């Protein structure tokens, strides 16, 4: 790509907050609500069938109350956080969302048609359900449920593609990317999780309904617990997912990155607790669950979802789309170009606080940080550079940053000129020194040969395991 055509966007400073936390927080919330809506549709179909076949008369009382709860929570907050995800994704990485939309806009358009059906069927039931015959109610709920699940089907393909693009990396085909290696395990896992969440929320709602007596609640809870039965298959789907993701991604989750491993452990642990309680307590021993315990299990389910989503996002590093786009929105092909022309040479957006830096070299370093590092690192807050490099010597910084993808394979290669590398090193050193008013620039020309040697030694290719192994003599 011609570096002058690189799409520079204004980059906002989130202060001590990692940008990933913004999209991660909203994303987890949205995913949880969306999965509740999907599982909720299946649960309502089951309960409508139980009611109309006379197997569980009290189910009829439950359905309308649960559906109102679903509409108020999922149709409002769920729908808006879905749109909000787009806007938040733009704030964090416009290049990533641009690539996703460019490649998969027809998939997204298909998903939109299913979402529209979900809204129409849902509101039709919400508004007219109490006037309808049982068969008509079941038909509406079945359409709602089908549309909701297919929304997941289509979005799941796009999200899974980000981690495992599969043959898309070779032929660029939409369907090659959509039906990628992690598509099916991810879809099945999310379907089981959706059912479990819906079952747990049902237990909360059942306890909150004053119109039900104890016996009715007990029976309904036992019925709702059946939606948690597919949790027995979640370890299989999870293992399948781990088996098909790239070696290095699997490595982060299974010990290579302690943060990833701990989040995975939290997700698995919470799921085991919920699954164990549901399978042994609710299904086998037919125990009763009160509102407080049910609420606690919903919170645990949220923790499990949050942990799982954090790991799914985290193990993509250093990419947002594996092999195609690094987290800092620089493509692998551009790294070599930026090594020659600079990553911020053509950046039209000036620093907002240029006067805060005593020298031009520090200003350049700050620009390089903004362009290449700020999407994942704050200066001194979450994942802050001063925390990570505070004990490094200046020369160690030169080596580590120039060899970033080898030092830590979940980092992208440094994509800048030797002068930019040195400017970044000096700016970090200045920040580590508590931003003194006086600062002397390093002599870049004297260091030029050394810096070029370091960058050449590191190479421009990513540091993922497969490539690294292949390139070793």
């Amino acid at each position, binding site marked *: 790509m011609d570096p002058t055509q690189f799409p520079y966007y204004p980059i906002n400073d989130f202060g001590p907050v990692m940008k990933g936390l913004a999209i991660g927080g909203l994303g987890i919330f949205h995913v949880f609500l969306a999965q509740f809506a999907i599982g909720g549709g299946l649960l309502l179909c089951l309960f409508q069938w139980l009611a109309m076949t006379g197997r569980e008369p009290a189910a009829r009382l439950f359905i309308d109350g649960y559906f109102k709860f679903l509409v108020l929570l999922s149709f409002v907050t769920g729908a*808006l956080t879905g749109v909000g995800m787009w806007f938040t994704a733009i704030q964090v990485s416009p290049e990533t969302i641009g690539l996703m939309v460019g490649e998969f806009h*027809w998939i997204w358009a298909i998903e939109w048609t299913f*979402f529209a059906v979900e809204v129409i069927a849902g509101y039709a039931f919400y508004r007219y359900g109490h006037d309808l015959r049982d068969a008509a109610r079941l038909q509406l709920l079945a359409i709602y449920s089908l549309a909701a699940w297919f929304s997941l089907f289509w979005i799941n393909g796009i999200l899974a593609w980000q981690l495992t693009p599969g043959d898309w990396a070779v032929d660029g085909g939409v369907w090659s990317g959509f039906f990628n290696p992690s598509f099916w395990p991810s879809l099945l896992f999310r379907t089981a999780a959706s059912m479990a969440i819906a079952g747990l929320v049902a237990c909360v709602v059942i306890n909150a309904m004053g119109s039900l007596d104890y016996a009715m609640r007990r029976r309904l809870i036992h019925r709702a617990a059946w939606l948690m039965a597919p949790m027995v298959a979640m370890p299989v789907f999870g293992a399948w997912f781990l088996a098909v993701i790239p070696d290095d991604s699997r490595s982060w989750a299974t010990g290579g990155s302690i943060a990833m491993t701990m989040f995975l452990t939290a997700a698995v642990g919470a799921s085991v607790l919920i699954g164990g309680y549901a399978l042994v307590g609710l299904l086998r021993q037919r125990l009763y669950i009160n509102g407080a315990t049910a609420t606690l299990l919903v919170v645990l389910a949220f923790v499990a979802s949050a942990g799982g989503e954090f790991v799914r996002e985290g193990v993509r590093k250093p990419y947002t789309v594996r092999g195609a786009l690094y987290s800092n929105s620089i493509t692998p092909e551009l790294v070599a170009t930026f090594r020659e022309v600079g990553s911020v040479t053509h950046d039209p957006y000036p620093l907002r606080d240029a006067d805060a830096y005593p020298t031009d070299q520090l200003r350049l370093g700050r620009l390089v940080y903004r362009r290449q590092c700020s999407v994942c690192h704050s200066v001194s807050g979450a994942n802050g550079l001063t925390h990570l490099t505070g004990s490094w010597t200046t020369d160690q910084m030169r080596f580590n940053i120039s060899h970033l993808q080898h030092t830590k394979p979940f980092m992208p290669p440094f994509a800048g000129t030797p002068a930019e590398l040195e400017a970044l090193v000096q700016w970090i050193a200045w920040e580590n020194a508590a931003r003194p008013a006086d600062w002397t620039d390093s002599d870049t020309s004297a260091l030029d040969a050394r810096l070029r040697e370091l960058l050449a030694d590191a190479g421009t290719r990513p540091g993922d395991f497969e490539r690294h192994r292949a390139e070793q003599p």
Partner: protein
Amino acid sequence: MDTPFPFGFPAPTAFYLVLFVVTLIVHVVLMNYVLAGTAVLAVSGLRGGLARPNPLAGILGDWLPFALSGAITAAIAPLLFVQILYRQPFYTANLLLFNRWMAMLPVLIVGFYLLYVLKAPRFEGRWPRTAAALGAAVCFLFAAWSWTENSLLTLAGDQWAGFYQAERIVHWEPALLPRLGMWIFGALPTMALVCLLQIANSNRGNRNLETRYGPDAVTGTVRLLAWLALAGLAAAVACGLIYAAVGDLAVRSALTGPLGRWYLLLGLVGAAAQFALWWGLVRDPTPRRLAPLTLATLATIAGMTVFREAVRLHALDLQASLQPYFDQHAVAAGRGGFVAFLVFAALNVGLASLCVWIVRTGRRQQVSN
């Protein structure tokens, strides 16, 4: 730029432009209903109009949550296509106004729930309903203002770097208020039309408003709707004239150039027809001539939506060559999935129709209100 929209553009660009405009029109109809509906309820509440049940408050209170849900759902498609058509300027404006977009989500959620408060029986009474309507109207006006500001900033490429460096959070230019006013006041005739259609439909069905509120109340509501539509049209035209006067070269190019002027003419002809038809309803307030009124309203919305796009295309063309955009559109058009989209869109139109059929035929008994 020397042929009417969308002719004269490369096929992929024209294709995405048409898709964008068509889906945006659907969104605009629903958005107008929500925006004007909440504003009317808020003003009505302040004047004591929500103290007792009346047909307009009943219809709006009942349907606004669904309409907002529809407006949000309908917004997704144009939001998708705008990212293909104008990726860099659209993303840049969003990033520059990031405070606004981060605020938009909670504001819209609050507005959405306030619509349910407006509908809930437990919040009956003048002041709770007035407060809910007022709060919702403020939320949606905030969204309208933010969106207009964002659209204008998209076109102000020469100001982006300065805007960023100065850490500004508001984009101001003389065209902002008249453009915003044009859309806000223009929402009133749309809302009035949809309410009129709902009244006409209720008179045919089993939820007869005349039975519930009395014939005089319904007649009064139709006349009120007609006055609201006329006032909205007049104010929107006045704002449009100011917008044309203070607008920049892109606006003037769209006014005089072939790309947009025929659509502006379509919009104005539609507005003139609406004037005549609404005036007829002021004199004889019975729901009638609904088909021509609907056509006239759609003509106005379609004409102005395309004209809005013509302004944007002229502005981008004045900044730099449009060729990079055309290249991006060609790449996007080369991506697969369109045939699958058509298949599933047809399937889902069928499913949506099936939902309506189920509701129409699946009643246990006729329900009277």
